[in-house]
């Protein structure tokens, strides 16, 4: 009897130990693991990046976003991905003037380089998207780009052998949706930080410009060239919209296509000049193949229109000398960050 009681007591104790290790409730279900916060390394001197409250950055979210960015699953025929037109080797832009979409047709504007894009206050050349999350929706459904629809994308993701797990790890649900997919892509894009250029090292005081680069910087950062008014700050963009005199009668209305305001006709978003050496061709329509052409435009090629930027309207032609042009281009090349192009964290995960 005593031995039986001892056995029963032992079983009870063991059972209690087992159940004590379980969650309350009938099934002993483990809580899903919370995603790991992602520590975004903001470069020295850069402003704080605003992260949307409804899309905090996580390791799992960034990883999922990186996969989606490079995965052709987002396109109708699974041939193209975001990275097809935003190539890491060219600083996440396309070396073609206009990118070719799934239908074999070209777009109408040059692919924008995704550099420090987490600081953008609006996306696209015409600013029609107010956030990275909003922007990421468009290319998937654009007939000239990925030519897909989000319902199909969701279906493909949800029957994929891996994506349900990845969505669960990132967002706590195995159900892939458009909204979660673009959140992940936006998280990845916020990690595309470039601040390793010679210009940054000079700014930090660990290197000095050559005489030619210094002369070019002086032109850039003074009223001689007046580049800094639009391409200033460490971001090398003011994140605003300007008409920089490309056309007397612009066909592409730019910002005005979004706002409908006549004084926005022909205004386009100021792109960053970081890595400009790698991001040819230039302007919203990729009309300039080289930096020399760009500088020539600002020197003597500006076209007057009713919305030409007032600073350019006031200044008139810069009439740079050949030496000044050479110096300015030498300075622009100090904005190059080659490590950004080959950073494994930004590279195609399906090729590693």
């Amino acid at each position, binding site marked *: 009897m005593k031995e039986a009681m001892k056995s029963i007591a032992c079983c009870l104790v063991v059972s209690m130990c087992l159940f004590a290790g379980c969650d309350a409730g009938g099934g002993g279900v483990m809580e899903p693991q919370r995603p790991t916060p992602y520590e975004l390394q903001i470069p020295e*001197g*850069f*402003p*704080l990046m605003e992260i949307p409250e409804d899309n905090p950055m996580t390791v799992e979210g960034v990883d999922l976003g990186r996969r989606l960015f490079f995965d052709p699953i987002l396109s109708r025929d699974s041939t193209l991905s975001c990275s097809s037109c935003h190539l890491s080797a060219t600083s996440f832009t396309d070396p073609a003037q206009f990118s070719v979409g799934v239908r074999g047709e070209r777009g109408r504007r040059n692919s924008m380089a995704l550099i420090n894009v987490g*600081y953008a*206050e609006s996306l696209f050349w015409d600013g029609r998207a107010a956030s990275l999350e909003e922007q990421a929706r468009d290319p998937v459904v654009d007939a000239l780009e990925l030519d897909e629809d989000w319902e199909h994308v969701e279906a493909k993701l949800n029957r994929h052998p891996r994506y349900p797990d990845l969505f669960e790890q990132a967002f706590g649900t195995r159900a892939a949706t458009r909204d979660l997919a673009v959140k992940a892509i936006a998280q990845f894009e916020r990690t595309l930080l470039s601040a390793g250029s010679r210009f940054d090292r000079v700014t930090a005081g660990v290197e000095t410009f050559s005489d030619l680069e210094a002369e070019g910087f*002086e032109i850039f*950062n*003074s*009223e001689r060239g*007046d580049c*800094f008014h639009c391409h*200033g*700050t*460490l*971001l090398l963009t*003011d*994140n*605003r919209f300007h008409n920089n005199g490309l056309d007397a009668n612009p066909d592409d209305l730019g910002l005005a296509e979004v706002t409908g*305001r006549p*004084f926005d006709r022909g205004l386009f978003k100021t792109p960053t000049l970081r890595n400009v050496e790698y991001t040819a061709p230039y302007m919203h329509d990729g009309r300039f193949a080289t930096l020399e052409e760009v500088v020539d435009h600002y020197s003597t090629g500006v076209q*007057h229109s*009713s919305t*030409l*930027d*007032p*600073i*350019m*309207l*006031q*200044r008139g032609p810069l009439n740079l000398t050949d030496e000044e042009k050479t110096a300015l281009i030498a300075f622009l090349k100090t904005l190059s960050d080659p490590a950004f192009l080959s950073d494994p964290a930004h590279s195609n995960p399906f090729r590693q």
Partner: protein
Amino acid sequence: MCVRFARFVPVALLALFITAGCDSNEEDAPGTVTVQMNHTVSGDELALNSLQYTNTAGNLYSVSLLEYIITNVTLQTAGGGAVALSEVQYVNADDASSQRFSAPDIAGGTYSGITFTFGVDGARNTTGALPNTTVFNNMAWPAGMGGGYHYMRLEGRFQGDAGEGGFAVHTGPTMGADYSFDVTLPANIRVDGGETVVEVEMDINEWFGNPNIYDFRDVQGGIMGNASLQQVLQANGMDIFSIGSVE
């Protein structure tokens, strides 16, 4: 009984006179003071990108950009004291949220006016001194021209003799000189709980005609390195602000 109470009357009257002479009424509760920056052109509310304004020089012009920094915004007391409202404020005529700022928990009482510095005063106007945000970073004044920050960027278009022209009135610390200026606006501002809104108006035309005439046709190139024009604008700027209303 009447005699007993009568003894207190003189004391009561005396107390009444004492409290009537004070700025601080013991019954005035702390409140929020809100400053609303408004922009006009000779009395008319500014409409951006509208070619309808004429300055003293006869330039017909429009404004496409007006942004500026004010610092050391304070309420003045009759006794010469000051209560801080804002240390630094960026204002953009195209962004309503930037034109209005508030300071909570301001001691109740009656204040004699509002003061601020237009721009960033010389001692503080160094690169990196202001918050590291897009709006302030965009106002950076190149190091080679003195460093620090623009006080103002006022840009637009005008009808010149030979066609359309542009203007870019950028004021700031040209070659390290301090062209900021202090603005003192007398006003009866009573804080007694709730919110008191003080409207401050900038009359843009005052930049161009009082006391110096600023003719867009006479300005060649940028003015950031032009000390003479910076001095002209500093002098003209002294009377551009006024109190609109206090409610």
